[in-house]
């Protein structure tokens, strides 16, 4: 099973992802409603992927991704973003973000993310 944590303080992003992931039998989904809750969860449990919203109640998604590196750099991370491709690349450089997702991701975005994740997991899961 692929364990995924969604970190989102608003329901729009989390609900869009949840409805898509529900159809995927190989995925177990958990949600954190703030950055700090997410950090505490990645400290205690092992996830294959964390997906963060762009703005959380207590920090931005990229701030969360940066803080997560200190807790567990091994966890893969995707982030919602309204920035252009180049702006996102600049803002997230060094954080090792798998993919930027739109604020309302669709099934095609999730499928692309999962294909990308599988590619990485084949090299990193022993």
């Amino acid at each position, binding site marked *: 099973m692929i364990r995924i944590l969604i970190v989102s303080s608003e329901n729009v992003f989390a609900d869009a992802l949840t409805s898509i992931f529900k159809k995927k039998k190989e995925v177990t989904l958990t949600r954190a409603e703030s950055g700090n809750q997410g950090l505490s969860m990645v400290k205690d449990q092992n996830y294959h992927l964390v997906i963060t919203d762009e703005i959380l109640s207590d920090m931005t998604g990229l701030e969360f991704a940066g803080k997560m590196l200190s807790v567990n*750099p091994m966890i893969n991370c995707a982030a919602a973003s309204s920035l252009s491709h180049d702006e996102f690349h600049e803002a997230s450089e*060094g954080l090792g973000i798998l993919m930027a997702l739109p604020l309302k991701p669709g099934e095609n975005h999730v499928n692309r993310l999962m294909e990308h994740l599988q590619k*990485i997991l084949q090299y990193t899961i022993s």
Partner: protein
Amino acid sequence: MMKNGRIAIPSMGSGGLDGQRSGHFGHCDVFTFVDVEDGKIKQVLTIQNQEHVQGGCMVPVNLLAGHKVNALVVGGIGMRPLMGFRQVGIDVYHDAERIDIRPVVEDLIAGKLAMITDDQVCGGGGAQRV
């Protein structure tokens, strides 16, 4: 000074002690491994890098940890892979000036190369790449 251990150098082309370094470890063609025993170079090996995918920073971390690497020399690195290398116990050294592998390896063995600091990572402090 390094007495015993395995050094990894991200390399271009076929690598080797007389080869040239690659500017970004994630995109290098091969890794040159230099095994050090009693402060001397015992053997030099190369291994193929794996495919680089966006966000796949932990792929080389796992690869080098699996080959029992003790030290890595980079010209540039992102914070996530740096934290990953630290987590698996691989020391990361920094040299953004020299393209040739041999002098960098000799300096590392002699204890003349500094470990990378957090403000030298790509995206965090505008670190230069080789």
